């Protein structure tokens, strides 16, 4: 479908973000919501960004999309898409880059659909915005896209209005719309959070198929560790505007290193085996961007906090697995054993 897309043969990363910072001027002073995030995404790679509300995960991808429009926002750092710098690009240029190669889907599909037109017409409109096609050809292309995302009876579905579709079908329609530009990069912000698990499984299958059929690279934001384990090649865990741990998915689940990651994994009740009497929950709540603690931002909620945590730890790589935590290898192993013991101390 899109094999002749120019530029898809480069070996370098498709996306390179360096020291991204997003701040807001507010009545209560300057607030730094994303604080020095760097990441790279390879061709055909699926990267998951995990974090809780306020961790800066959504702002990070909105910055990549150039969609932070708040006049009080300040975006600093560098975002290179296929080697081209996006930060500071004029609006018109940015729109061309975005429309031609980057697409984004959101948690609520209705943010991208208008209730007053049939979905076929909405998708065809997107097709025509990217390609010089006749109305008729665009309508045909829309039906192909609807079929590609697995909506049954594509020609019939094209005539339906969003309110006539279920949540899962609407999310598929939005993905069809995102595909209209043959995106090399798909940014998905909690695309399955509002959906039922059986539908979530269908949408995750579709994202995998996108990578296989269209060769897209994907950044998928989620708070669900199960979704991460299912779909991601690599994971970045964000907390209070920073990446605190990053690794290949298998490595992160086999050997979580940051106490926050350990806590997140422990918070999930198991679906099999013994039930813990209590879940090893992380105490407290994620900090507000207005009051990010000094030093290690996770410090106040951390069971293994020590004096050295008063200094903000840098993200340090150790065999391809990066962690922003001062715990030594031995201390980490002890922490893991300790949190596992709580989980296993079951009924």
């Amino acid at each position, binding site marked *: 479908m899109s094999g002749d897309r120019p530029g898809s043969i480069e070996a370098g990363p498709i996306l390179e973000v360096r020291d991204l910072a997003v701040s807001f001027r507010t009545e209560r002073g300057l607030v730094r919501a994303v604080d020095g995030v760097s990441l790279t995404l390879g061709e055909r790679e699926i990267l998951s960004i995990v974090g809780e509300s306020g961790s800066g995960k959504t702002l990070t991808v909105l910055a990549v999309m150039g969609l932070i429009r708040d006049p009080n926002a300040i975006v600093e750092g560098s975002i290179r898409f296929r080697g081209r710098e996006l930060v500071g690009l004029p609006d018109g240029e940015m729109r061309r880059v975005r429309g031609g190669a980057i697409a984004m889907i959101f948690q609520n599909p209705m943010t991208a659909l208008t209730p007053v037109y049939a979905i076929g017409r909405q998708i065809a409109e997107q097709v025509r915005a990217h390609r010089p096609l006749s109305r008729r050809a665009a309508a045909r292309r829309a039906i192909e896209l609807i079929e590609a995302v697995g909506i049954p009876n594509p020609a019939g579905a094209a005539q339906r209005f969003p309110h006539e579709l*279920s949540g899962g079908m609407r999310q598929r329609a939005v993905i069809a719309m995102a595909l209209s530009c043959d995106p090399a990069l798909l940014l998905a912000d909690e695309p399955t959070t509002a959906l039922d698990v059986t539908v979530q499984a269908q949408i995750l299958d579709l994202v995998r198929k996108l990578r296989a059929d269209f060769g897209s690279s994907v950044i998928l934001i989620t708070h669900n560790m199960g979704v991460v384990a299912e779909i991601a090649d690599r994971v970045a865990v964000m907390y209070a505007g920073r990446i605190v741990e990053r690794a290949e998915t298998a490595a992160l689940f086999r050997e979580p290193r940051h106490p926050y990651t350990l806590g997140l994994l422990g918070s999930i009740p198991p679906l099999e085996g013994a039930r813990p009497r209590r879940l090893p929950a992380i105490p407290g709540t994620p900090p507000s961007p207005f009051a990010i603690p000094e030093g290690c931002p996770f410090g106040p909620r951390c069971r293994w906090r020590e004096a050295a945590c008063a200094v903000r730890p840098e993200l340090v790589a150790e065999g391809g697995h990066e962690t922003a935590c001062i715990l030594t290898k031995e201390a980490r192993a002890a922490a893991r054993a300790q949190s596992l013991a709580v989980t296993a101390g079951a009924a």
Partner: protein
Amino acid sequence: MSGEARPLLEAVGVSKRYRVGNHLLARFNKVVHAVEKVSLAVQEGETLGLVGESGCGKSTLGRCLTRLYEVSDGHILFEGTDITVLGARALRALRTRMQMVFQDPAASLNPRRRVGELIAEPLIVHRRGTRAEIAARVRALLREVGLLAEHAERFPHEFSGGQQQRIGIARALALAPRLIVADEPVSALDASVQAQIVNLFMDLQERLGLTYVFIAHDLSVVRQVSTRVAVMYLGAIVEIGPTDEVLSAPSHPYTQALISAVPVPDPAAPNRRRIILEGDVPSPIDPPPGCPFHPRCGYATERCRSERPVLSEHGRGWDVACHFPLNGS
């Protein structure tokens, strides 16, 4: 749970139907069968988990159980009394013994009232003591749910989502109810906070001997809190039984598919056989004939297309509504 004891709460053939459309002649309007002939019993001290996908009727059933909604058919017995026929005065007395906790705590807390007033309100309405006694009870309730007594002076917006849910729980506990129906009480919360509130529900049950009906779509949360679990599909219960048994070896093909769709946070887990259900849940306006699950069921036969299975025991000790239940292997 002794099987002989009279259940605290019992639903007998409960249905809830809505009419949609506004045609002059009733026969031209369609009927949504939100809950279809549901019967279940909840014993004192246990937690019944109610799971299912959106639109399956679990929330509607929860609201019928507490009589926030009037049932269209059937009876609900609480402490042996049929509550579907109670008048306003008796209903108000009933509310002191059964309470609800909702998904969105912010929506159920008046933003203009202080937390202390919000928690005191049911105590004042039901004249539970003097001002000083009520103030002391509010402080005790705040501590009970893991907040501080001085939080009574603050407003709801000053709290995080998890803390707001704690306030909602304190309010539900104010009159010392025996039964709490909780409708998705943790699904709007962040993962780390969700675990805290799940723990709180379990601690309170242990300390106060509460009985819960816990409605949620997240199977792992339901597994953590429930003694028994009821799985709903298209307004009806398709399987109900002991949590561990039902979730580890389900009898109904829908339960099996639902469990298999949950993504497991372990990429090294042996490849589980995932059953991807085709299509969507059918409309409750026009439910399919026979077994409501048959259009999406991999095991459906001719019989499933014509004859509706009844919820009954099938040799494994719990009830399932299926002509060909799975045997757990």
